[in-house]
């Protein structure tokens, strides 16, 4: 009898070891501070009309061209530019904490902390049901995650209608965002696949890498609205889409094709590069006030 008991317990222990070993190879520690790298596009430096790398519908393009930055003076529109997608489009790093169940000690959620404008995002890891379609939509949305093939896979729904670029490229509240977070040593790469049935012809796919930071990132609270001089009932600042005074600014600054700047889908594939080869003329070298990296920013 004692032998049976010992054998059963040994078997149980072995089972736990095997299970632990198999899950350990599928998960990684996401909690911590991850510093931004700034080696790929960020949105904090974009000019008003820069839809490069997007596959927009005509409706989206028209709405985007009607956007006037002064809309940010309206309380109800102040935070529209910093939805969930800004996680990989903005210039900030990730400050990630994990929350565990006090009884089972299992991870219930990861929270990516807020920064200046972007609101915190919770990735629920406990298989809870997704809220009703009619539930509250927020800037960060509702995100469920799971471990899959060594990556943290997650899907965000229930986003508030806003922008996929803070310069007014719209995103509806029907948009969904699929995330894959890969960790390779001290580098985490976050892959975003944003889909919108109204404004995107093809998904917006962006990946951004971060490096593990030895010092904790210190960011502030997310977007908080405040009075900025525009009263309720005032008109909405906007441009007629065909008269946006900034429509050609980026085109002229870098000699870029207009259809690329305006987010036409064909411009995302190598064939387009061959198409413009004979007509593209690079801008002349910057010779003064070029910024730290010949980046033309000051010249602009």
């Amino acid at each position, binding site marked *: 009898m004692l032998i*049976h008991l010992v*054998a*059963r317990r040994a*078997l149980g222990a*072995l*089972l736990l*070891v*095997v299970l632990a070993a*198999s*899950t350990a*190879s*599928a998960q990684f520690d996401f909690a911590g501070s991850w510093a931004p*790298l*700034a*080696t*790929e*596009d960020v949105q904090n430096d974009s000019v008003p009309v820069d839809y*490069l*790398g*997007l596959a927009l519908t005509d409706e989206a393009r028209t709405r985007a061209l009607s956007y006037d930055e002064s809309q940010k003076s309206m309380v109800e529109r102040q935070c529209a530019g910093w939805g969930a997608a800004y996680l990989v489009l903005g210039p900030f790093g990730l400050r990630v904490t994990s929350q565990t169940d006090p009884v089972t000690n299992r991870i219930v959620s990861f929270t990516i902390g807020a920064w200046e404008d972007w609101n915190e995002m919770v990735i629920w890891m406990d298989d809870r049901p997704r809220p009703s379609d009619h539930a509250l939509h927020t800037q960060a949305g509702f995100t469920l995650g799971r*471990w*899959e*093939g*060594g*990556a943290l896979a997650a899907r965000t729904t229930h986003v508030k209608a806003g922008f996929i670029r803070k310069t007014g490229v719209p995103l509806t509240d029907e948009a969904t965002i699929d995330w*894959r977070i*890969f960790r*390779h040593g001290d580098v985490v*790469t976050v*892959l975003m*696949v944003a*889909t919108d049935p109204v404004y995107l012809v093809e*998904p917006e*796919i*962006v*990946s951004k*890498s971060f*490096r593990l930071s030895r010092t904790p990132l210190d960011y502030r609270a997310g977007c908080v609205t405040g009075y900025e001089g525009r009263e309720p009932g005032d008109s909405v600042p906007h441009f007629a889409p065909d008269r946006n005074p900034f429509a050609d600014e980026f085109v002229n600054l*870098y*000699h*870029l094709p207009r259809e*690329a700047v305006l987010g036409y889908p064909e*411009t*995302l*594939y*190598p*064939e*387009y590069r*061959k198409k*413009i*080869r004979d007509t*593209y003329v*690079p801008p002349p*070298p*910057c010779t003064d006030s*070029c910024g730290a*990296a*010949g*980046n*033309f920013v000051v010249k602009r």
Partner: protein
Amino acid sequence: MRRGLTAAALTLVLLGALAGQTAVRAQQQGGGPASAARDRAPIDLTGYWVSYVTENWRYRMVTPAKGEYRRIPSSRAALPLINAWDPAADERAGNQCKSYGAGAIMSVPGRLHITWQDADTLRVETDAGTQTRLFRFAPRTTSSSPRSWQGESAATWEPATGGGSLRVVTSNLRAGYLRKNGVPYGERATVTEHFDVAPLADAGRLLLVTTIVEDPEYLTGPYIVSPHFKKEPDGSKWDPTPCSSTW
């Protein structure tokens, strides 16, 4: 008696599972692979893939202005080279492939054709610049080769439950450009790449290549980008083109 047999059978299954995991770890640590890399592949990278250029468009789809090295952590030693960029001189010297080397090739818009050259060598061809990279899972037995645009690439699978990743470390490179307009990396540069796959809608697949270029000479820190590719059903759009120093 029956309970005893069941326990024994369960023990065998568990021991087998544990032994399997130990074998995988042994492979990860280079402790004698049990089979060829092709058989151990945790993800399938073979087939045709097309660049989907949604990031750094201005630096990849067109040739930026001379002197623009924004977003690349170039060192002071790199600046004279950046300012001296002369594509015509590169053409004359037969160096028109300098922006197609391993440090940059995954960011050059084009298509990849990935196949197994043999059971332990993954072959990656690019139609842009008509380049070939060989990712070797088994160490080479011959003496080292001369430096080349694509260098020598050592590959390792990094398996995880339900998937995994490919890690490739490339060195022995000829000096090249990170960007078409002459932003340099040197011969001492190493390129570490992680190949991951992710699903897309309608049974589509995405290939993500996290690329880390380290160069003690021309970079002040790692240059990290992550170009991505969509899977294509076949090679009907495969269009090899030669290297160009200007485009």
